[in-house]
C-alpha cells in the first residue's frame, strides 16, 4: 500500500474527533430467559441430538463445579475454578466447531473439553495431579490438555495462548486443512500485550482463528470499567480489521450461531474472527477468592436470573425435547458419577519420581539425570520425610 492510497476515507477541513460511540455494536440474542426465540431470529444449525448433547455437557459442567468446590472446601483438592454462569460460552463454542479444530483455553472453558468427550477419569486425574494425569501431575488443577481431543494444554500466564492460536491457525492453513483454531480468553486477559500481538498478526497474516472473548465483568476483583474505557473488546476487533460480533454469552443459541458462522467464514476466507460474549462470572474467581469483598449480593442475584443452563432447559422443554423427570434423573446420575470418580482419583498414587525430569527436553540431559539420582539417594536416606515417593523407585 503506497502512502497516497493510505487514506481512502472521506476528507474534512475542520478538526473532527471521533470516539467509540461512532461504532455501534449490537448484541446478538436469539433466546430469551423463558426459552422463547425472538421473532425473526436466525436460529443456528441444531437438531434434537445436538441440543441434547449440548445440554448434557452443560448439566455435567454444573454438577462438576458444585462437587469440586465442595471437595476443595473439604481439603481433598488443592485448588479449583468454576465457570458458574458462563458454561454456555465454552460448551456452545465447542459445539460450533469440528473435532479437528484446535481449542485453546484460558482456564474457565473446561466446558469445551467436556463437550469434546474428555473422560471423567482424565478430568479427575488432572484435578488430583495423580499418576494417571495426562499432564503427569505437573500443573495446578484446571490446567487440562488433550492431544487426542485437540485441546491445547492450559497454562497460567494470561493471554499467551492468543498469539499462539494465530500461529497454530496459520500452520493449519499452510497444510490446507479444513480446520480452524478457537482461542478463548477473558476481558481481563485482553489487556495484555499478547492480545494486541495475536489479533494484529492474525489479521495481517490471515490466519483462520476464532478469538472468543468471555466478557464476564470481572478480572478477579477488577470490574471491567477499571479494565478498559472503550466499547468493550469488540470495538478493538474492528480496529485490527477483524470481522467482529458481540453476543449474549448466556444464550446458547447465540453462541452456537456465532461460532458456526465464524468457523465457516474463517475456513472459507482464511481470516480471523472476534466474538465477544457478554456474560457474568457468577462464582468466585477461584477457590482462593471471595467476591463478597468487591461486589454486592444484589448484583449477583440479578445475574442468577440470567442462568444460561436454565434458559436452555426452558427452550428444550418448549421443544418437547426435555422434561423435569429427565432433568432430575440426569443431575442425580452426574452427581453420583462425579462423587465416585473423586473417590477413585484421590486414591491413585502421585506420579513416579522419574517424571520430575522427563519432558523438560525430548531426552533428559546428563545434568538432569545426575540431579535426579541425587534426589533419589536423598529420599532413600530420609524416607519418612518423602512419603509419596519413598520406597517406590
Amino acid at each position, binding site marked *: 500500500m503506497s502512502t497516497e492510497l493510505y487514506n481512502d476515507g472521506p476528507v474534512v477541513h475542520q478538526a473532527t474527533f471521533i470516539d467509540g460511540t461512532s461504532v455501534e455494536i449490537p448484541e446478538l440474542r436469539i433466546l430469551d430467559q423463558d426459552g422463547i426465540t425472538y421473532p425473526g431470529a436466525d436460529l443456528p444449525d441444531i437438531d434434537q441430538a445436538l441440543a441434547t448433547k449440548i445440554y448434557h455437557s452443560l448439566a455435567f459442567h454444573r454438577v462438576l463445579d458444585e462437587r469440586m468446590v465442595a471437595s476443595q472446601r473439604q481439603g481433598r483438592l488443592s485448588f479449583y475454578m468454576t465457570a458458574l454462569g458462563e458454561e454456555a460460552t465454552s460448551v456452545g463454542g465447542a459445539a460450533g466447531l469440528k473435532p479437528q479444530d484446535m481449542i485453546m483455553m484460558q482456564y474457565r472453558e473446561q466446558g469445551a473439553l467436556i463437550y469434546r468427550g474428555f473422560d471423567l477419569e482424565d478430568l479427575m486425574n488432572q484435578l488430583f495431579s495423580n499418576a494417571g494425569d495426562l*499432564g503427569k501431575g505437573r500443573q495446578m488443577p484446571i490446567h487440562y490438555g488433550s492431544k487426542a481431543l485437540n485441546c491445547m494444554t492450559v497454562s497460567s500466564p494470561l493471554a499467551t495462548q492468543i498469539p499462539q492460536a494465530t500461529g497454530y491457525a496459520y500452520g493449519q492453513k499452510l497444510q490446507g486443512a479444513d480446520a480452524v483454531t478457537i482461542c478463548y480468553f477473558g476481558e481481563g486477559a485482553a489487556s495484555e500485550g499478547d492480545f494486541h500481538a495475536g489479533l494484529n498478526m492474525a489479521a495481517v497474516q490471515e490466519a483462520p482463528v476464532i478469538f472468543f472473548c468471555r466478557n464476564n465483568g470481572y478480572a478477579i476483583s477488577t470490574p471491567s470499567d477499571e479494565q478498559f474505557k472503550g466499547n468493550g473488546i469488540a470495538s478493538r476487533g474492528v480496529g485490527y480489521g477483524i470481522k467482529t460480533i458481540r453476543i449474549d454469552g448466556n444464550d446458547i443459541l447465540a453462541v452456537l450461531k456465532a461460532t458456526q458462522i465464524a468457523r465457516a467464514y474463517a475456513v472459507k476466507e482464511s481470516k480471523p474472527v472476534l466474538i465477544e460474549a457478554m456474560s457474568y462470572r457468577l462464582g468466585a474467581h477461584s477457590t482462593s477468592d471471595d467476591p463478597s469483598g468487591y461486589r454486592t449480593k444484589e448484583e449477583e442475584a440479578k445475574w442468577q436470573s440470567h442462568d444460561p443452563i436454565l434458559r436452555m432447559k426452558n427452550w428444550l422443554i418448549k421443544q418437547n425435547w426435555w422434561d423435569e423427570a429427565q432433568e432430575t434423573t440426569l443431575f442425580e446420575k452426574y452427581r453420583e458419577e462425579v462423587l465416585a470418580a473423586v473417590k477413585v482419583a484421590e486414591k491413585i498414587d502421585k506420579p513416579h519420581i522419574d517424571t520430575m525430569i522427563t519432558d523438560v527436553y525430548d531426552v533428559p540431559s546428563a545434568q538432569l539425570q545426575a540431579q535426579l539420582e541425587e534426589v533419589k539417594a536423598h529420599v532413600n536416606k530420609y524416607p519418612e520425610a518423602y512419603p509419596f515417593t519413598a520406597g517406590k523407585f
Partner: protein
Amino acid sequence: MAQINLLQAINSALDIAMAENKSTVCFGEDVGHFGGVFRATSGLQEKYGKARCFNTPLVEQGIIGFANGLAAQGSVAIAEIQFADYIFPAFDQIVNEAAKFRYRSGNEFNVGKLTIRSPYGGGIAGGLYHSQSPEAYFAHTPGLKVVIPRNPYQAKGLLLASIRDDNPVIFFEPKRLYRASVGEVPEEDYQLPLGKAEVVQTGTDITLLAWGAQMEIIEKAAQMASNDGISCEVVDLRTILPWDIETISNSVMKTGRLLISQEAPLTAGFASEIAATIQSECFLHLESPIARVCGLDTPYPLALEKEYVSDHLKVYEAIIKSVNF
C-alpha cells in the same frame, strides 16, 4: 568448498531447511522480500513464496507467540528477532511458554520444532541496544537450548542441527562476524552436534574457554601467551544450554587452570555457572583460582566500548596472572 561469510552460511542453512520440508517457515521483522536487515533471509521469499517467508508486524512477543503456536501445530518455525537486545518483550513467551510447553503438558504438546535466530554481541559501535549478549538470562531456563557459533562453518552446521533438534533452540549469531568472518563451508547439508564443546587448540598449561565472537579474542591472547612459552588449550563451548561439562572438566583436569571469557557483564554471567561447576568437579586439580574475563557490570557503552570489552589484552593479562599464581 566455497569461501563464504557467516551470513551466507546462515542463509545456506535456511535454504536447505526450507527445501527439505514444506512446513518450514521463516518470519520476523523485515525478513520477507527485503531479506532481513542483515540479509540473512535473502532470496528465501523469492524461492519459497510469501506464505513461507514473510514479514511480521513489529511485535516481538507476537513473533515468538506465533512461533510457539506454529511449532506446536507441527510446522518448523524459524523466527528471527532483529537484535538480541529486543528479545526481552518475548521473554514471557520464551521462558513461560516455549521452555515449559512439553513439560507442562506431559508431552501431549511440544514446540520442539521452534528455532529463534537473533543477531547478538557487541564490537560494532552498537551502544546499549545493539550490542547485548543475553545468553545467561536464558541459561537459567530449563527446557531451552542456547547455541552460539564462532564462524561460518560452525554457523551452518549448528543452525541446521538447531532447526532439526526436537527442542526449542535460541540461536545467537555474533553479528560482528556476519561479514568479517569468512571461511570454507561445504555447500551440502551437514550438522554439528548440540551440547558438545570443541577443543579448537590443545595445550597443557591453561584452559581458555569462550563462545561466539569471543573465540577470536581468546585465540589471539593464546597466541600472545605462547610467545611467552605458555601452552593454552582453547575451547569453544558452542552450546550454552545444556553445556558440555565433561569436555571442560577433562581439559581442566589436564591443565589445572581455567579462564572463561564472555562479552556479557560479569555478575551472574554464564562464566559464573561454569566456574562454580568446574571448581566442584575439578577441585583437587586446580592450581589457581578460575579467572573470569567479562564485560563490566554496566550497560554496554558506546564511546567507551574499547575500554568496556574483554579484549585480547585483558585476557592475556589474566592468563599471566593465573599461570603465575
